[in-house]
């Protein structure tokens, strides 16, 4: 056994243990990407750098064995900067989107590509379930949203954007709303003032978390401006009522016809654990419940929506007037997280957005690559015309036009996870033109996107170890090094028995299972 000190704590490890493994044994997270448990160390990504505290020098901990008396630091500022810089260098040559641009463009960050895929597969109710994770009123929004998502859609560069908004409307109309399983009550009580899109969304998501919500509105019926400002032709009442009903059915206690004055508000802040103000635009200098304000409305933290009062949050037009209902809906969803954190005595952070790699606009040479996972077809329009929605066939056809821009590794990509935790800035080393994206999909179970590769060599080493006849190999060297199949062979012949293992071993989304 060998004794070493990591972050000033001694640990005994077996001889031959790497410093990284020793640290992990102590529960210290040492980031790594080129390490694979079945393989020898390789020392490529350099994320696992730690410091020899006696000499002050950094070294890659995956490849150095613990030696008696060694003293190591794993997390000082210099090490953090090293890892952040390594990540930023890797990101500078990592050409790919984590979340699809449509999802980034959507103020509610709805998982549009997944919605599309489920529609394309005829799974309309599953699709609706996905939509409702972020958008509480899909059928309504499907009729009135100006669809910023479609402006961001990569397909728009190729020909015309995917008709996302109508697809959402379609699942809102045709999907069976997910059954609401009442969460176990937490005993917390929250008042939401205003039953417009923001208030409805806040009430819905809080209620789903097991919070008892009382939703107040000065009008008799919930809906706010959705009910008063939008033409019936555009948004028929039965559609609006049906979706509001679904929200109220989740257990929200709706109290209509109750305008809240200062006195009532003050009482509320005492009767309820928290109050969410979603009362719409405050006219002129009308009282803002004695909360700190701005020229435009109530002042609240941009990411948590918390106001100057500890247990009061504000969203929607009460912050500033906007005609974008989807923004209010998104804020309603997000504030639920802040309130939830507050109720549970956790630091109020709001709904944290993960790091997202982005590469910008598609270029011409890439159209055909992206179309490999899509269909060549013009944008579909509802045949019945006018304000009508898609038929099921039309919806499926349109959903298939989605280019699948979101990354398959979105949940388990180490590059994304570490970039997030080390605050990496992908634009830092945007010093020259990016590479052109290619997608290799001629394999029954995996897809390979070389421009996402970080050259860690795990796939090369795995195929070599498992003696694939062709396998993967390094081609070229230096910055232009690539991982590919020898003799430009087919992917199918390169990865036979190892395909799944290789896809799972890839630390980024470069090699992924197609089914993902």
């Amino acid at each position, binding site marked *: 056994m060998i004794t070493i000190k990591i972050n000033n704590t001694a640990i005994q490890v077996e001889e031959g243990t790497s410093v990284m493994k020793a640290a992990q044994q102590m529960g210290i997270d040492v980031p790594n990407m080129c390490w694979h448990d079945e393989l020898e*160390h*390789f*020392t*490529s*990504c*350099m*994320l696992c*750098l730690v410091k020899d505290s006696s000499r002050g020098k*950094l*070294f*890659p901990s995956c*490849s*150095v*064995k613990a030696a008696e008396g060694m003293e190591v630091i794993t997390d000082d500022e210099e090490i953090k*900067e*090293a890892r952040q*810089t*390594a990540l930023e*260098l*890797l990101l*500078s*040559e990592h050409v790919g989107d984590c979340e699809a641009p449509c999802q980034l463009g959507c103020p509610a960050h709805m998982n549009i590509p997944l919605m599309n895929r489920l529609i394309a597969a005829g799974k309309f109710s599953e699709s609706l379930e996905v939509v409702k994770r972020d958008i509480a009123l899909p059928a309504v929004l499907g009729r009135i949203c100006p669809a910023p998502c479609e402006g961001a859609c990569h397909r728009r560069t190729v020909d015309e954007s995917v008709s996302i908004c109508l697809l959402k409307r379609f699942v809102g109309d045709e999907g069976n709303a997910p059954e609401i399983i009442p969460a176990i009550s937490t005993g917390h009580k929250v008042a939401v003032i205003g039953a417009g899109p923001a208030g409805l969304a806040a009430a819905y998501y809080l209620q789903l978390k097991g919070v008892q919500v009382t939703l107040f509105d000065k009008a008799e019926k919930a809906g706010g401006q959705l009910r008063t400002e939008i033409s019936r032709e555009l948004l028929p009442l039965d559609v609006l009522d049906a979706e509001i009903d679904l929200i109220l059915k989740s257990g929200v206690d709706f109290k209509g016809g109750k305008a809240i004055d200062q006195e009532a508000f003050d009482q509320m802040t005492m009767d309820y654990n928290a109050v969410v103000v979603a009362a719409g635009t405050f006219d002129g200098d009308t009282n803002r419940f004695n909360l700190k304000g701005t020229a435009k409305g109530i002042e609240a933290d941009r990411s948590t929506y918390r106001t100057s009062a500890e247990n009061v949050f504000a969203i929607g037009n009460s912050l500033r007037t906007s005609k974008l209902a989807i923004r209010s809906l998104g804020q309603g969803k997000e504030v639920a997280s802040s309130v939830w954190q507050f109720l549970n005595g956790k630091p109020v952070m709001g709904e944290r957005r993960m790091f997202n790699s982005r590469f910008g606009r598609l270029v011409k040479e890439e159209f055909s690559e992206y179309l490999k996972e899509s269909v060549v077809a013009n944008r579909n329009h509802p045949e019945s015309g006018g304000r009508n929605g898609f038929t099921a066939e039309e919806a499926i056809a349109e959903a298939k036009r989605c280019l699948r821009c979101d990354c398959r590794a979105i949940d388990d990509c180490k590059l994304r996870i570490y970039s997030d935790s080390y605050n990496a800035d992908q634009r*830092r*080393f945007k*010093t*020259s033109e990016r590479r052109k994206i290619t997608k290799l999909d001629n394999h029954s179970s995996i897809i390979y996107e070389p421009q996402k590769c*970080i*050259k860690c*060599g795990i796939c*090369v080493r795995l*195929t*070599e170890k498992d003696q*694939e*006849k*062709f*396998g*993967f*190999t*390094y*081609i*070229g*060297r*230096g*910055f*232009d*090094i690539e991982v590919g199949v*020898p*003799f430009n*062979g087919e992917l199918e012949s390169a990865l036979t028995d190892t395909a799944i293992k290789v896809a799972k071993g890839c630390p980024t989304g470069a090699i992924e299972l197609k089914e993902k």
Partner: protein
Amino acid sequence: MNQKFQNIDRIIEENGTSKKSLIPLLQAIQNEYNYLPEEALKYLSEQTSISPSEIISVASFYKQFRMQPAGKHLVKICVGTACHVKGAGLVYDSFRRHFKLPSDNDTDDSKTYTLEKVSCLGCCTLAPVVQVDDITYGHVAPDQVDQVIEDFESQQNKKEAKKYRKADGSEIKGEIRIGLGSCCVASGSGEIEREVESVVNQNNLRVKLKHVGCVGMCHQVPLVEIVPNEGEPTLYAKVKPEDVRNIVESHFQPPGVFAKLKNKILHFAEDIQTDRNWDGVQRYEISMREKPVASFLGNQVPIATEYRGIINPIDINEYIKRGGFTAIKKMFSELTPDEVVAEVKNSGIRGRGGAGFPTGVKWEFVKKEKSETKYLICNGDEGDPGAFMDRMLLESYPYRVIEGMIIAAYATEIHHGYFYIRAEYPLAVKRIRKALEICRENNFLGKNIQGSGFDLELTIYEGAGAFVCGEETALIASIEGSRGFPRIRPPFPAQSGLWGNPTLVNNTETLAQISYIIREGADKFNGIGTLGNTGTKVFALAGKVARGGLIEVPMGITIREVVEVIGGGIANGRKFKAVQIGGPSGGCIPAEYANTPINYESLSEMGAMMGSGGLVVLDDTDCMVDMARFFLSFTQDESCGKCTFCRVGTKRMLDILDNITTGKGKPEDLKELEKLAEWTGKGSLCGLGKTAPNPILSTLKYFRDEYEAHINGVCPTGKCMEMITYSVNDECIGCTKCVQKCPVDAIPFTPHEKHSIDTELCIKCDACRAVCPVDAIDVK
């Protein structure tokens, strides 16, 4: 099918079927087909135990290998440091234009010529240099490309193409320099010059006459220096007019006797470094050359280059006659391996490959390893663009290096060794191969060497072109038949090297100094140089000095002494600006620090490095940002791509420098460049990446104002093409010379009128400026 691959069957038979034979196999296949045909490689994988991925991995890693057929003739443009500072980039562009090459192809449409950039052809004194097949053209100007190709083609049907030629087709064999410093003139060098001219004209010699300024040897005037195309110059001091004919004729044969003396001259052309056949000159030297230039000019001390210019490289008897192999005789009879190690430790010698690790300590590590099998490797994978001392040592002193290897092997109990030599050094490979053969015949190698009971076998391994293979772990990977990826140390090769066995890797120059240490004793060696930096170091002195070439100087000599005394100062009356020491791992030291002594520590402190021993002198016309970019583009190109910091870090630094040198720099770039340089240095896996930022950091440190000027849109020296424009000033006499030279018709034909340049059309090839007789072309 079988018919088609017959040759490959033969190649496999000759080289073996296991992975360690992969590089030799690929070299042989390329030799056969001029590239690596895919079919051949597939067949190779079927017939051997080597997998397709291993084959492609290796074939695509090394520069030597081509996956596409090359043209019939190979045009190599040297872009080494010395050639770079003398405008090789413009020459390269000019060749591309000549062959009308698109950006993604290096072979012309007719498949006759393939253009290739090479790092250093080792003819720095002829810079810029172009090699077409085996004919070398020196001092090539960008507007001489047509002539070079024309001349090359005119040589094709001749039996004996002359190997060194000027671009206009005349053969040049060298240069005769006549000192024209004030002392020289006073001592009568004018008379000497007339005599030289008369001898040259009478014999119709193709040599260049050149006047040089004062070389600081005023007590020896008048001076005549003979500079052959390759190899070292010879300086004659206190020359009298009646000596001139003897001196000149001993170096240069008149063309008329060429055929008669064919063999002799071929010998000369091939073996220029030291094979000169000095009929009668020996005697002449004694009276004329008080001492050879080496020993009194700036205190050079030949150890690795002992008897330079005197001994025939492969004549073992001559080597023995001049004290060769006395070290091993002494060793075998008097010294135990431990005593040899102790002696080397006492000598204080440190690795001449650049990092300066004490050689004796390294030997001790290997000696300690109790393993049945251990290996010794002579690292001759020199790749610095502008350093060729290893090549020179291997070519000129093969026995001295072999003797060093025998001593190292004996001391560390090794019985098998490799010479790792770049395939780009065919003559070195040939010489060592021959020398090894002769050593075996004379029992200096093989079993029971000289009756000592000690056995040693040495073999040659030809590197395939990867700078990173100078790093010992990458070099070992290369011998094992893999791509040259370095790996982390520890374990050091001394513990686990070649095929997991303890391995001693020493640089060629280090090994070339070992026999001296054993023969003369550690104390004699450590009496040279300074404490902690003992002995001598060989440098390739090039750039803007009056006299470039290989020099061997004691450690601790100052930069000034090297530049001014040995190098003869700056040529053409320009101002000494800086020296670049250590090549791509080194840095630039400005002229005001010229008193810095050359040793491992002081160079590091200054931000440079001993590195591989390139020493390039820069004058006030050199752009320091361009120099940093030059070296970085080299390391970036040579990065193996294994670790993040080197693979991407060098690329991003180069991007930033590209932006700065093309007028797209932003003020915040400098800070980012510094930061990135710091991290590339700290985070890279091997020495290549760790030292790659040095050229940037040192120039940022000493010449930050030049970077700032670029960011403000001005390249102060007018070197950065994108930042300059050509224009005609009022000196113009309307002679139309520039009009005729302009390759893109950017100068309208207006005889007797002031010319003008259409900057839209101008490609900044510099042809007009070079040809203008009245300095009427402005570059701003």
